[in-house]
């Protein structure tokens, strides 16, 4: 090992120590699997090690590392969605089961009153644990589309392009995800 590589590796180890927790959390909220999140973080640092010579300290370390991780996550999403395409998009259940044949809410799916202040920003950890739990109950495709839309603010048409799905499929996915998420929050948070 040359001195130069040793220094690189030491630098990356230091980066790891200061940024690994943040990056792991970033990954796991997006992929919902501990092992995959760990792998993505590892891949990120392997890539960082290979490119550290090109890294200019002009940009922030965390920004640089997050950008690498983002690409790894998108690659992972694409792989996942391709599997869906292979198994056909049958899993893409429509929203039919929330409504009767006239398009009215089914009795069990009708939104109920929540006795909360809707303008309030919630700070309890419990709320976020439940929200995360409900998010994790979405199927993979819903979760991916939802996370890209709400965590990463990616435009709908770009999500469709990235995931190679049609706009109408995308809206079914999001519509169903939102119906499901609302119902889950009502059951687990409001009524618990």
């Amino acid at each position, binding site marked *: 090992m040359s001195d130069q590589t040793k220094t690189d590796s030491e630098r990356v180890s230091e980066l790891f120590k200061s940024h690994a*927790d943040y990056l792991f959390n970033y990954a796991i909220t997006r992929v919902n699997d501990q092992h995959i999140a760990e792998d993505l973080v590892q891949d990120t640092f392997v890539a960082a090690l290979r490119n550290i010579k090109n890294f200019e300290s002009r940009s922030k370390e965390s920004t640089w590392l997050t950008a690498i991780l983002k690409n790894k996550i998108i690659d992972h999403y694409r792989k996942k969605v391709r599997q869906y395409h292979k198994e056909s998009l049958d899993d893409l259940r429509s929203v039919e089961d929330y409504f009767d044949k006239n398009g009215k809410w089914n009795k069990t799916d009708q939104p109920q009153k929540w006795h909360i202040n809707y303008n309030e920003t919630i700070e309890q950890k419990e709320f976020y644990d439940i929200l995360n739990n409900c998010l994790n109950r979405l199927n993979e495709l819903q979760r991916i589309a939802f996370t890209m839309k*709400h965590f990463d603010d990616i435009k709908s048409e770009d999500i469709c392009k990235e995931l190679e799905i049609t706009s109408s499929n995308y809206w079914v996915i999001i519509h169903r995800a939102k119906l499901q998420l*609302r119902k889950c929050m009502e059951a687990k948070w409001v009524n618990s």
Partner: protein
Amino acid sequence: MGLMLSCKDASELIVKRDAEELKFYDRMRLMMHLSMCKFCALFEKQNAFIDSNIKALDNTVVKEFQPESKEKILESLKNE
């Protein structure tokens, strides 16, 4: 979709609305529906509430990075 929206169509328009501007005709139909249907009005409110709080989830620690896993990765980086 006729002049009267069903709840299914109304909830779809509510979901779509934050990504794309609805056509005037759809906006009118949705407004009319929401003024008459308390369930869809609740859906609209609750959906907006979840949307406005969901971003904060991104900055909440949902799971600790296991120290053993960290150690392993650090080791493997040394051997890269």
